[in-house]
């Protein structure tokens, strides 16, 4: 992949790099420079790149964006739309990636560290792990983030610490009369036998401008630790989000990743990469995307089975309305020594409009023989018989359709272990389904 087309956005970044670099916090200079060289080599992807075959990201980078290294001011009342009713949780608020202590409620538990990544720069753990878990070689956006990230959160949970309540991590984005290019960077480390739940959400308070967010989250789940991550993407219209989530699991660890992409951000690209470095791990990756209008939702997942006896389970479901477009690429790689692997992957889609569009690539790449691996894909529309059944029992067409969509999404929503979050998502799905 070479940068065959130089776009204004690419030129803006390359030309402005020395100046932008001065504005970045923390002492990560060698890493940033190396990553930037990588970014320049890769260039911005075109649809000729296999990973971007169905997503023309250039379309979403056409508008002029301004590199935005600073936080805006946000008040408590502005956060109201993003509150999840009945959620008993600690709260961390980031504005344009910058930690807001006055708006946050942190756990007062010994062994739990939550601070801006820049402030944690000198920690040996950060120096050891930052940038080490992402595949910079072929990920231009992750490389760009590594080169010029400005905010983000460092979370560390010490060995044997069970965080009693979930942490609600609210990403607030603001703009003022200009389109903003924002790059948060997170590093989360959950030590041996520890447990942590994070509920992550987005609140777009942009005023007269579009946000382009290019984030990276690296997580290390150590031996026998458990980490649940609920990522709720319900951003405002026009927003563009590219996110790379890289997780590394050590032996006996458990990782549950939930990704809900609901209206109305115009572009969402999620890369989820899980590397299984220990034996006997468990990974559950569940995703639900409901897209309407002209939304473009792209999920790329990669599970790398590097050690024997690991289980991975992946289920992504999508409901597409209007002229929404969805892309799913799931890749399972089983290393030659990863015997006794169980790896399952399924992608199912409901196309509820004749203009909606789905492209899917469920891939298996297997080099070990004693494994159980499967993948599946389906696309279809409402089961007319089910619809008829409901209607013949006096249920209106719209209500019947809502019921069927709810039932389709149930496989995912039922797995959500926090009741308040579950209710929140179900109500949002209902709101999103308006069939014209």
């Amino acid at each position, binding site marked *: 992949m070479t940068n065959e087309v130089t776009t204004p956005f690419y030129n803006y970044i390359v030309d402005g790099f020395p100046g932008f670099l001065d504005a970045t916090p923390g002492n990560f200079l060698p890493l940033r420079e190396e990553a930037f060289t990588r970014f320049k080599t890769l260039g911005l992807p075109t649809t000729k790149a296999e990973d971007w075959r169905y997503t023309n990201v250039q379309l979403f980078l056409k508008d002029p964006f301004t590199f935005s290294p600073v936080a805006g001011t946000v008040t408590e009342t502005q956060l109201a739309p993003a509150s999840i009713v009945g959620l008993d949780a600690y709260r961390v608020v980031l504005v344009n990636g910058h930690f807001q202590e006055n708006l946050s409620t942190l756990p007062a538990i010994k062994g739990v560290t939550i601070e801006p990544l820049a402030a944690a720069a000198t920690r040996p753990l950060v120096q050891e792990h930052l940038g080490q878990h992402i595949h910079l070689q072929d990920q231009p956006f992750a490389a760009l983030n590594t080169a010029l990230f400005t905010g983000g959160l460092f979370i560390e949970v010490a060995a044997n610490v069970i965080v009693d309540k979930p942490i609600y991590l609210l990403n607030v984005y603001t703009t003022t009369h200009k389109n903003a290019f924002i790059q948060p960077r997170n590093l989360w480390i959950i030590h041996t036998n520890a447990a942590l739940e994070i509920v992550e959400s987005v609140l777009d308070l942009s005023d007269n401008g579009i946000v382009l967010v290019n984030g990276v989250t690296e997580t290390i789940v150590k031996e026998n630790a458990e980490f649940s991550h609920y990522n709720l993407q319900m951003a405002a219209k026009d927003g563009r989000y590219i996110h790379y989530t890289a997780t590394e699991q050590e032996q006996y660890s458990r990782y549950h990743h939930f990704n809900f992409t609901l209206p109305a951000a115009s572009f969402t690209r999620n890369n989820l990469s899980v590397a299984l470095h220990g034996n006997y791990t468990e990974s559950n990756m569940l995703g639900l995307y409901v897209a309407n209008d002209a939304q473009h939702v792209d999920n790329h997942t990669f599970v790398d089975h590097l050690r024997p006896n690991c289980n991975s389970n992946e289920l992504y479901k999508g409901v597409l309305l209007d002229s929404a477009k969805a892309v799913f690429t799931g890749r399972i790689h089983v290393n030659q020594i990863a015997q006794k692997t169980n790896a399952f992957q399924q992608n199912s889609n409901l196309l509820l409009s004749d203009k909606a569009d*789905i492209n*899917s*690539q*469920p891939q298996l790449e297997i080099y070990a023989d004693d494994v159980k691996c499967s993948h599946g894909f389906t696309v279809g529309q409402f089961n007319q018989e089910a619809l008829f059944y409901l209607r013949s029992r006096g249920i209106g067409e719209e209500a019947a359709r809502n019921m069927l969509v709810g039932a389709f999404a149930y496989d995912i929503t039922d797995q959500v272990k926090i009741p308040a979050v579950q209710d929140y998502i179900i109500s949002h799905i209902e709101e999103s389904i308006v069939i014209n």
Partner: protein
Amino acid sequence: MKNSNDIIDDIASKEYEFGFTTDIEMEIAPKGLSEDTIRFISAKKNEPEWLLQWRLKAYAAFLKMKMPAWQHFDMPQIDFQNVSYYAAPKQKKQLNSLDEVDPELLATFAKLGIPLNEQKMMTGVAVDAVFDSVSVATTYKGKLKELGIIFCSFGEAVQEHPELVKQYLGSVVPHSDNIFAALNAAVFSDGSFVYIPKGVRSPMELSTYFRINAENTGQFERTLIIADDDAYVSYLEGCTAPQRDENQLHAAVVEIVTLERAEVKYSTVQNWYPGDKDGKGGIYNFVTKRGICRGAHSKISWTQVETGSSITWKYPSVILQGDHSQGEFYSVAVTRNRQIADTGTKMIHMGKNTRSRIISKGISAGHGDNSYRGLVKIGPRAQSARNFTQCDSLLIGDQCGAHTFPYIESRNNTATVEHEATTSKIGEDQIFYLNARGIDTEKAVALIVNGYAKEVLNQLPMEFAVEAQKLLSITLEGSVG
């Protein structure tokens, strides 16, 4: 009883039985590729000007193209200048009957078990035998002619039915489709041509047998099958090559056109020389096969058993243009030693109520690498289109790889597309069950593999099914996962 390692070694060291060469006087074009080569071939075949121009156009396109890079294996360097593009058994005059064919040649085909002799009525298969680049004999021509069926070598078709060739040549696989198709279009030397007229059901299977014999040659044949309204034909293709240390290139093109309610069934048993156990030598089998269901209610069915070649790279595809048309793809691909197979299909749904079915079974042993790569595309006008895809992989030994890379693109909400894939090995419980019933491990494996591939083998015509089944058990004799 042998332990599983011995058995895996056995598979790896299995000899290729068709590795002999035939000592026959050949006419071989000098190595190298240029416009002159193309003019030479065209002149040799006494071709009309339009065909030469078409070849030259393809050559121009070929020169502009780059080798593809999306495949799941390391693409070998192919020196297109180090290949001879024309090799033919030397013959002085036009042949009128089989008696005039070089006996050495007949002996070769007899050795391969190909019935060229029309007296042997029992098989009931009409054969067109292609030796290196030239069609040497076509059997049962007279009988087919009575029904209006044209079954002859491509060169003959160009001379005798230029209007049909001109109309359909390149209409499914354009001269600039991909680099190998362009190369084929530029230098193809012969192949088979089939035309089934309106309302005719071919009373027998038509068959082509390809053999590469000469050293340093490539085989570039081109097959064109046209089934007019309500016609039906079942077509078989088989191939072998001698054992050599260099890699040889085989870049064929097959085009199929079905009109209203017509049906073509195309079966391949591919057994080119696969190279030795270290991956030395073998055929690069880079083939473009595509059919178009132009008429409503027409059907194209591809069945393939791929056991040979050091690299197999082909995607027999169907363009479902006519409403209610059907496409099918059944495949068994076996890789062992250092063999690589990257194969699959494309089903392009364009018409209303079009249906397609894909069944792919991959078997990998030794250091083999087996990939399924397929595309199912539902166009915006393909109302109520239906696709079902199943691709299963069987791994024998822990040094091999099995991969699935499906691409699914749906642009119509009334379409239903299903895809499922599994990967597994031969279960110890299955072997144990058969052992307990007095069946030794080798036979048990053969049984299980044949059962695994049954869905595909069942699609083959009888004569071929027996051959394919034998081939499969020889290839995987006694394997325990």
